[in-house]
């Protein structure tokens, strides 16, 4: 990822004040050491790191200087490097604005809200690049296999893409030789306020899924849990609300509320139902810091997984982005983030024009993520992504073991990727039974499938 340079004629420095050249060393010089002649990805990364460390050590002047230089590199309509830099710079500025302990720190919310999409727009959005569709395809295929022989299926869907995953599964179930099972999908009423955002409620989404299922003759039911008002509403009786994402649950701990509802009675679990848990870009929003008061030293994330396990699901599919972005050190996060998020930027670059609105929107959503990862700390930093490897370890610790994806799944995913640009690939990590989406060989998204160790009924 280098900004290719056009060599210009060597310009002599005609500075007005020659007495400026006094002391040789300076922190900004250090920042730019090794950047002789090229302001490429490595250099930008260094600058970002220097800016961050300057902020952390309260050296505002240096931070300003670096930001100024970065500002002249950054461009939201430039090449991927420049675009990425612009989002990082935003995040750093956002962070800087909170360094100063003033009234600005009202609620720490400096970020602007993302646009609200319609459902059809979201459908288009998730298919822009195989970033999401890869996970859908692998998961749905694993789910399909796991529920073989069952006539009732209950999917507990934790995802940030508003059920975009399910139409293809419903379609596949409709074509099942032995006839479709009856399908029940439950989603939490609370969803992290991250893009992509919809302009309709989840009940409305459920309504549409219900329509589609009816059209495909798959018995369908949609429930929402976690609402303080109602614990469930089926698609046939729900009123379609067009208010926006009104999770005004009485508690201020939405994940905890959700956790409390993860029990057989609140979920209305049935004995003859195959319970499927779907985690799609979700687990990262559960806090991974150990919490002594509430969870006896475990983290919310671990506790959540333990609770899930206690529900004895038939299969748990986990899809997320393959990078560790939740280190406590800011500089480490910047490095990892910068070295990971160039991947979607590069993919979009090969595929869409510089001013394509879809591309800009997609990049803005990534920018939203960057802003949270870099600009915030503590409980405000909600993006705590961990890589496939780390997550796999966590799942194992929670008492799950991984099941491999079948050959037909692999074939399906490969066929999917064939229909996209040729940089997309897939690899299988045998030890973890992971399928990984790759772009030019770099890991982007991982998909895994798990069953609980005891009582996991998949082994016959």
């Amino acid at each position, binding site marked *: 990822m280098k900004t290719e340079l056009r060599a210009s004629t060597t310009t002599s420095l005609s*500075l007005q004040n020659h007495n400026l050249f006094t002391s040789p060393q300076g922190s900004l010089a250090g920042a730019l050491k090794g950047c002789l002649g090229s302001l490429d990805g490595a250099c930008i990364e260094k600058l970002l790191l220097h800016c961050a460390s300057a902020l952390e050590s309260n050296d505002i002047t240096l931070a300003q200087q670096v930001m100024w230089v970065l500002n002249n590199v950054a461009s939201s309509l430039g090449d991927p490097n420049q675009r990425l830099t612009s989002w990082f710079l935003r995040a750093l500025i956002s962070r800087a604005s909170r360094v100063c302990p003033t009234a600005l720190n009202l609620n720490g919310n400096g970020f602007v809200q993302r646009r609200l999409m319609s459902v059809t727009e979201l*459908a288009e959005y998730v298919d822009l690049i195989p970033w999401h569709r890869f996970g859908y395809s692998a998961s749905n295929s694993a789910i399909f296999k796991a529920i073989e022989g069952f006539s009732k299926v209950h999917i507990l869907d934790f995802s940030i893409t508003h059920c975009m995953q399910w139409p293809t599964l419903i379609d596949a179930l409709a074509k099942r030789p032995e006839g479709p099972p009856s399908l029940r999908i439950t989603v939490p009423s609370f969803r992290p306020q991250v893009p992509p955002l919809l302009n309709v409620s989840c009940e409305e989404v459920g309504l549409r899924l219900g329509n589609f299922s*009816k059209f495909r003759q798959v018995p369908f039911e949609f429930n929402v849990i976690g609402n303080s008002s109602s614990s469930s509403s089926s698609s046939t009786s729900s009123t379609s609300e067009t208010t926006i994402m009104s999770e005004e649950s009485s508690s201020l701990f939405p994940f905890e509320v959700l956790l409390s509802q993860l029990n057989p009675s609140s979920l209305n679990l049935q004995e003859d139902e195959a319970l499927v848990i779907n985690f799609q870009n979700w687990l990262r929003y559960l806090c991974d810091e150990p919490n002594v008061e509430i969870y006896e030293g475990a983290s919310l994330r671990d506790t959540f997984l333990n609770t899930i396990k206690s529900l004895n699901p038939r299969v748990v599919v986990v899809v997320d982005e393959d990078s560790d972005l939740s280190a406590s050190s800011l500089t480490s996060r910047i490095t990892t983030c910068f070295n990971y998020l160039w991947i979607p930027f590069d993919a979009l670059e*090969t595929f869409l024009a510089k001013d394509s609105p879809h591309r800009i*929107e997609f990049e803005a959503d990534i920018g939203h993520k960057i802003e949270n990862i870099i600009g915030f700390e503590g409980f405000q930093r909600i993006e705590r992504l961990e890589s496939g490897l780390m997550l796999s370890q966590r799942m194992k610790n929670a008492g799950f073991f991984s099941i491999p994806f079948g050959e037909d799944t692999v074939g399906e995913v490969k066929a999917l990727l064939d229909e996209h640009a040729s940089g997309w690939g897939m690899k299988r990590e045998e030890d973890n039974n992971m399928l990984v989406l790759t772009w030019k060989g770099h890991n982007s998204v991982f998909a895994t499938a798990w069953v609980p160790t005891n009582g996991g009924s998949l082994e016959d």
Partner: protein
Amino acid sequence: MAVSEMAGEAGVSSSGFKITPAAVAPSKKKRNLPGMPDPEAEVIALSPRTLLATNRFVCEICNKGFQRDQNLQLHRRGHNLPWKLRQRTTKEVRKRVYVCPEPSCVHHNPTRALGDLTGIKKHFCRKHGEKKWKCERCSKKYAVQSDWKAHMKTCGTREYKCDCGTLFSRRDSFITHRAFCDALAEESARSQTLPISPEGNPNVKAVVASPPPPPLTPSTTVVSPALSIQSSELPDNPIGLSPPTPATTCLTTSTTISTTCASSNTSSSCTVFASIFAPSTTTQISQLPQTSASSYSNNVSSLARPHSSTTHPTIAGLEPTSLSLSTSLYLSLNNGSSLFPTPENQDSRHYAPSPQPAAMSATALLQKAAQMGAAASNAPLLCGFGLTTSSSSSAAQKSQIKPESGAAVAAGLGLGLSSVENSGLTDYLVMGPSPTFGNPPMTRDLLGLSIGGGSGGSTGRLSALLNSFGGSGFDVTASPTSYGGGPPERKPNGPTLL
């Protein structure tokens, strides 16, 4: 005889080939599986150059190239040159198989050789060659032209059509769209009382007979009013939100990010949007404060926060601060850009940004920074972060900016998105005094310099920075990059001047 034939076929380069017998399990005379050659076959290893060569047979008169010797011979007839068409020899020709020259390839092994020359050529191109052929529609790339042609036959032809008229080339995107499409919702609403016909196949290519559904009133696209507000390129505000309510201001704030494309590309479309959605503006705005403040605060255990119950106080509380942020920043904006129609900022001229980053070398940037820093009086940078801006000029400018506060907020919190095309935050980062950060409250200008070589530390920084460039200017150019396979290629340590 065999050797000479090989030499002839090898054309220009006859190096790098050998003939060895293949040694595999006995096979039958019928067609073998690919990569499991006839044990009697003659194994031929051609060099990559040979494999990739296209027109190897060249006419000596006119230098026209041909892929086959036969064609060249026929061509030579036209020059009245002696020609000779080689007839197929009557004796049994030993079958030839070819191995791939790429050592890491599975077909490099003679036991996995491929049966025909064209096959090995294609294989080599596909697997180890550069993909030179690109499909325009879906941007898939191919190394072999015939593959590309085959793809072009099918690309875009197999299409799925939704009732709403949208076409899809991929089935999964078609299914997903269809599930959520308004057309389906309409249809099911209409057929509520009637049983659905069991034709559950969404795979119909023909258009369904039902008339296209009327366009749904886009009452839920709340973004559009904001378009007209924040895109300050519009001289007038058709929605008539000129006295912006605090909610509106934050509406602007909150929806700024999204509309980068819209505002930077087509202000005309903004107008269209604005006029269409004008009636629904007021109702929509009221909904937004709920969301605009909630991006991170929702899932925050915000017991410590006073604003948990109602969101409006939050908005109200947010607004003045953001205004001061934005206005002060705006004051220091070097906005030569067209973002604000009336930039009467006294500093604007001083901070006129470079039109494109590409036009400036880093050294020149620093020079400019030094000059600007020397000239600036008291441009308040980071004092925009809610801090004291006691200068009267800034106060005056604050009031001046009020009518455009929406846009200013947009600039402030939207971070210079809207119409700043090339430099992401040009308007934003101007250095200046930052008293509250615990630094000595002396007037600093850009890059910490003051006129006449003030504080040593900050001066040293700039000089050291300039030193580090070593006098050789370099450009920060926006040019397309090509990504290699891995990180080492991505981040060269040395200079990469072209």
